[in-house]
C-alpha cells in the first residue's frame, strides 16, 4: 500500500523532470544562432518559398503555440522531423537497430563492470592493506582517470592490431540475431557478436568498473564500522555470513542509486566509444547530426536519451525502495 504511494510519487516526479527536460530542449532551438529558414532555404529563395518552409517547420506560430505543439507531439511519441532531410522523422532515423546497438553496448559494459567490480571491491575491503587491496585500488584509480576514447584506441593498438582483427567499421550482428542463429544450430554468429562486443564493452565498462570497485570498497569499509555489525558478531554469526548477508547487502543498496546517476556517464561514454569503434549506434548518429547542424534531429535524440535516462533512474529508485523500505518514509 505504502509502496504504491511511493511508486506514484516517483512516477509523477519523473514525468515532471521529463517535462522540464523537454522544455530545456525546446529552448535550445532559440539559442541556436542563425535562422533555420535561412540555413535551409536555397540562397535565391523568394519570400514565398521561405514562408512555406517556415510553415512546414511550424515556425510561423507564436512561441507558446510552438511550445504547446512540441510538448503535445512528444506526448504522442512524435519526436519531430529532420531539418536537413525534410519529412524524415526522428524515429525513422533512430531505427530500431541503432537503438538496440547502443543499448546492447551499454548493457554489456554494465555486466562487465558488475561482474568484475563487486568481487574486487569486496576483496579489497576485506583484505585491507594487502597486495590485492593495493592492486585493486591502483586499477580503480587508473580506471577513473583514463579517457575511454584513448583506452579504446590503445586496446585497438595493443590487442586488435596484433591479433589482426579490427572490430571497427562494420559492426557485428545484433544479439537477438546471434541467439536466433544459435538456436538454429549455428554458434558462429554469437562468436561474431562476442568478438565485436568485447573491446567496446571493455572500453566503455572500465570507468564504470573502476568507479564501482571504489564505491564497493569504501562502502564496505564504512558499513563494517557500523554498530549493527558488532551486534551481528556478538550473536556469533560467522564472518562470511556477516559480510555477505549484512555488510555487502547494505553496501550495495545505496550503490544502486549512485550507479543510476552514473549511468549518465555510461551513456556519454557510449557516444565516444561508438565513435572510436565506428559503432553504428545512437551516439554516432548524434555526432553526425550535430556536424550536419540538424537541430530538430539533435533535439529529438537528446530528449530520447533524457527520457531513457530518467526512466532508468526511476526504476532504480523503485528498486532501492523495495530493497530498503526506509527510504519510503522520508
Amino acid at each position, binding site marked *: 500500500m505504502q509502496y504504491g504511494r511511493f511508486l506514484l510519487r516517483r512516477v509523477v516526479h519523473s514525468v515532471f523532470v521529463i517535462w*522540464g527536460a523537454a522544455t530545456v530542449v525546446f529552448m535550445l532551438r532559440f539559442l541556436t544562432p542563425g535562422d533555420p529558414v535561412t540555413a535551409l532555404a536555397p540562397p535565391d529563395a523568394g519570400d514565398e518559398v521561405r514562408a512555406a518552409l517556415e510553415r512546414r517547420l511550424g515556425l510561423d506560430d507564436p512561441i507558446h503555440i510552438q511550445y504547446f505543439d512540441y510538448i503535445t507531439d512528444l506526448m504522442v511519441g512524435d519526436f519531430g522531423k529532420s531539418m536537413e532531410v525534410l519529412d524524415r522523422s526522428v524515429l525513422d532515423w533512430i531505427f530500431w537497430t541503432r537503438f538496440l546497438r547502443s543499448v546492447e553496448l551499454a548493457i554489456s559494459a554494465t555486466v562487465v563492470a558488475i561482474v568484475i567490480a563487486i568481487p574486487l571491491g569486496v576483496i579489497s575491503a576485506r583484505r585491507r592493506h594487502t597486495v590485492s587491496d593495493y592492486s585493486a585500488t591502483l586499477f580503480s584509480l587508473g580506471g577513473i*582517470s583514463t*579517457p575511454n*576514447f584513448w583506452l579504446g*584506441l590503445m586496446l585497438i593498438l595493443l590487442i586488435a592490431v596484433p591479433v589482426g582483427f*579490427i572490430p571497427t567499421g562494420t559492426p557485428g550482428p545484433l544479439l537477438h540475431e546471434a541467439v536466433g542463429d544459435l538456436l538454429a544450430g549455428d554458434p558462429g554468429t554469437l562468436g561474431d557478436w562476442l568478438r565485436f562486443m568485447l573491446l567496446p564493452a571493455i572500453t566503455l565498462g572500465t570507468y564504470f568498473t573502476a568507479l564501482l570497485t571504489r564505491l564497493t570498497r569504501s562502502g564496505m569499509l564504512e558499513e563494517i564500522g557500523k554498530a549493527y555489525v558488532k551486534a551481528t558478531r556478538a550473536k556469533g554469526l560467522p564472518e562470511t555470513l556477516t559480510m555477505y548477508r549484512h555488510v555487502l547487502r547494505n553496501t550495495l543498496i545505496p550503490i544502486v542509486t549512485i550507479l543510476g546517476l552514473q549511468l*549518465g556517464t555510461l551513456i556519454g561514454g557510449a*557516444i565516444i566509444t561508438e*565513435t572510436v569503434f565506428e559503432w553504428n549506434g545512437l551516439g554516432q548518429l548524434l555526432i553526425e547530426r550535430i556536424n550536419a547542424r540538424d537541430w530538430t534531429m539533435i533535439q529529438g535524440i537528446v530528449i530520447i536519451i*533524457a527520457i531513457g535516462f530518467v526512466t532508468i533512474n526511476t526504476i532504480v529508485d523503485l528498486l532501492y525502495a523495495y530493497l530498503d523500505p526506509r527510504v519510503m518514509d522520508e
Partner: protein
Amino acid sequence: MISDRVKASLKREFYQSRAAQVGLALVVIITLMAVFAPMIAPHDPTTQRVGTGDTAELTDLPPISPVPGHEFVGTREQSIVNETTGEFRNVQVEVPANASHPLGTNERGQDILSRVIYGARVSMLVGILGAALAAIVGVPYGLVAGYFGGRLDDGLMRIGDVMLAFPSLVLAIALIGVFRDSGFHTTDLPDPFVAAAQADAIPNILIPRSGHVATMPEATTFPVTVTLVVALVNWVWFARIARGEALSIRAEEYVTAARGLGASNTTILRQHILPNAITPIIVLATIQVAFIILLEASLSFLGFSGTNLTWGADIQQGRNGLSSGKWWVSTMPGLAIVLAVVGVNLLGDWLRDALDPGIQGESGGV
C-alpha cells in the same frame, strides 16, 4: 579559515601517504608545464614541416631516447617513385635519430613533446576554470536551497533534477553544437612570456632562453564555449553537495544558537554554514577538475573544442596512424591525460582522507 587541526591532519596524511605525494608532484609538474610552456617546449608546437626533401624527414618521426651518444634508429613509411615506371610505392625506410624530438613528431612534422606541453595549458585551464565556475554558481545555489528549505528548496532542486536528466556529455555536445557558431567560441590569450621576450621588456635573466621563447606562439587559443559548457553541465553537483551540507548544518545547535542571538540569515550563511560546508565542497571541486579534464578531452577528441592544440585533439589526429604502426602520436597525449587526471584524483583522495576522517570507516572510539 583553516584551523590548525586541519593543517595538522593534512600534513600527517601527506607524510603518511605515498599516493598523496605522487598526486601533488604530478599536479605541480603539469601545472608548471602549462604555465611555463614556452620555456620548456623544445619547439613551436604549431609549426608544420610538411613537404619534400629535408622537411619530409621531419614528419612521423618515432620517439627516441634523448640520451646523447646513443644513435637510435626508427623506421617510417615513405613513398618512393619508381623512376622507370613512374609508380609510387610505399617502403619502410630507416630514419636517423633526432634527439630534439624525444617523443617524435606527427604527420605534419609537429613536435609531439611540445604539443603535449602546450596541451596541458588548455586542459588545466579548462579543468580549473570550469570547476571554479561550476562551484561559483552551484555552491550558493545549493546553500540557499538547503538553508531555507521548504518550497524554495523544492523548487530549486527540481530545476537541478531537470539538469540531471541529461547525461553530461550529451548535454555538453548539444550545447556546443548550438554555441560553436557564435563569435565567442574561442578566444586568443596572448602569452605574456613570449610578448615580453619579443619586446625585450624584461631582462633576459628573468626569462630563461628568451631567444627561444620569442619564437614560440604569441597566443594560446582558449576554448571559451567548452569552459562555459562544462561548468553549465556540472554546477548541479556542487549545488547538491552544498544543499546537503546546508541541510545538516542548519540543524546544528550552533546555527540555532546564532539565530537565537538575532543573527541575520546572511550572517549565518557566511559565518557558519559556508565555513562548515567547505570541506566536502573542496573535495568535490578536486574530483570535478579531474572529471572536467576528461570531459574537455572527450570534446576535443570529437572536434568540438575549436582549438587543435589540446590533448584530445592530438589523440584524434594520431588515430589513423595506429593501424600503420605510428603508435606514438595518440599514445603520448593520452598518457599525459592519464597522468594529469591520476594526479588530481590522488590529490582529491588526500584531501578527503585528511579532511573527513570519518569516511575511513575505522574511527575506533574509546
